[in-house]
C-alpha cells in the first residue's frame, strides 16, 4: 500500500464517507482512490472534478479579483450528498485536488472540511513534529 493510499484511507474514516480520490487537475487523472464513486465510473468522476476546479480557478473571473487569491476548496451540495474538492498545495508538477464524496444523512460537512484540509496538507507538507529521516 502506498503512502498516497494511506492518506486516502484516512479520508474514508470520516463519518458518511462514500469515496475519495486524489486527482491531478491538469489532466483529470486519479492518482489514487478509495471507496466507491457515485455513478461507478471513477475515471469520469476524476476528470469531472478536475474540470470543475479548472473552470473555477481558471475561467471564473472572481479568481483574479485579487492577486494570489487561490481556491482552497469547492463544495457541491446535492440532495443526497456533498462533494468536497480540496486543493493540495503541491510544489511541483501542477495542481492536485483531494476529492471526497460524503453521504448527506451521515456526513458532517464542517468536520469533513476540516479533516480534508488537514489530510491535503499532510500529503505534501512535513508535520513540524514528524521525525526526520525515519521513513521507509
Amino acid at each position: 500500500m502506498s503512502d498516497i493510499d494511506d492518506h486516502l484511507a484516512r479520508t474514508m474514516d470520516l463519518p458518511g464517507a462514500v469515496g475519495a480520490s486524489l486527482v491531478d487537475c491538469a489532466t483529470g487523472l486519479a492518482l489514487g482512490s478509495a471507496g466507491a464513486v457515485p455513478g461507478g465510473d471513477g475515471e469520469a468522476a476524476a476528470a469531472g472534478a478536475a474540470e470543475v476546479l479548472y473552470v473555477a480557478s481558471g475561467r471564473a473571473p472572481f479568481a483574479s479579483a485579487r492577486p494570489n487569491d487561490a481556491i482552497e476548496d469547492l463544495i457541491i451540495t446535492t440532495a443526497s450528498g456533498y462533494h468536497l474538492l480540496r486543493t493540495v498545495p503541491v510544489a511541483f508538477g501542477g495542481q492536485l485536488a483531494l476529492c471526497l464524496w460524503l453521504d448527506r444523512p451521515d456526513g458532517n460537512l464542517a468536520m469533513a472540511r476540516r479533516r480534508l484540509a488537514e489530510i491535503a496538507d499532510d500529503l505534501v507538507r512535513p508535520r513540524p513534529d514528524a521525525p526526520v529521516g525515519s521513513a521507509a
Partner: protein
Amino acid sequence: MSETGRQPEIAQPSRLLSQLADAGETGTLYVDGGSSGTVHLIDGRVSCVESPAAPGVGALLTTSGRLAEHTWQAAVQTGAAGHRVGRLLVEQGHLMQSELELCVLGAIYDAAFFVLTTAATSVRFAPGELHWLGRVVEVEVGALERETSRRGRRLDEIFPESSVDHAPVTPVPTPPVQRVVLTAAQWELVVHADGRRTAADLSRLLGRPGYATLQEVRRLSAAGLLRNAGPPSSGGDRGAVDAPPDEGASAVADPDHGVTGPDPVAEGESPTRTRAATRREGGHRRQRDPQPSGPNGAGPVDAVPDDALLGRLRAALKALR
C-alpha cells in the same frame, strides 16, 4: 530477450510492453522513433518512464524549487548505483514519501503519453536493467495504456490540430476577441512562447509536465491566442481526430464586457516559477545525467502543412459565443 528490429507500427511499443507485463518481466524497454524514451519495469509493473518531451522527477523537483539542485545531485550520486535515489531522498528527510510518490506517478503518466504514442522505429528490451530511481510506485501497464489514449482523445477534443504540439509557437499579435482571461499557467506559456520554443521546450523551461503543457498550448490555439510560428518543422504522431473542440475548454473570451480591451489576467506568479525559468538548463540536464543510456534529444521531426488556420478561426468564432 525480445529484441525487435525496425517496427514502424505505432502500436509496437504497447504490444511488447503488454507482453513484458504479462510475463512479469523486470528491465528497461528502449523505444526509438518520433519521440524516444524508456519504460522501466519491475515484476511486470511500470516503475518509471522517461521521455525527452516530459520533465523527469529531478527536473520537476528542482525547477519548482522543492529540492535544491545540490540535494538532488547528492542523492543521485550516492543512490544511483544501488537504484535507491528515491528512497534516499525520503530517508534523509528531504522529501515525504507521499510527495515522492505523487511526483513519480505524475512523471510516469506524463512521459508515457509521449513514449507510447510515438511512431516507434525500434523497440528493444534490456532484461534486468533497473532504473536509478528505484521502486517508488508501480503502475499497471493497462492503466498506463488507458490513460494515454484518454489523453490523446482529450487533446483532440480541445483542438483537433496536432501541428501545434511539435512546432514553435508564438502569441498572435492581436487577440481575436475583446476580452481575454488566462490562467497563471497559460500566461506563463504566452509570455515564454517566443516563436522558437516548442511545447516540449516550454515544458522544460517552466518545469511543467509535458502533457499539461500540450494541453494548454492546444487550448490557447483553440482560443486563437497562440499560433504555430511556422515554418512548420514538425508533425504529429497522432492523426487529428475530427472531433469538435470543447467549447468549455478554451480561455474565457467575453465580448459582452469588453470595454477595456485585451485584459489578460494572471494569478500571482510565484518566485519559484521565475527562478525555475532561469535555471532550466541545469535542472534538466542534471535530471538526465544519471541515466546511463537514456534518450538524449528528441527524435527527428517531420513536416505538416499549416492548415490549422481554419480550425483556429472556427474555435475563435466559437469562443465568441
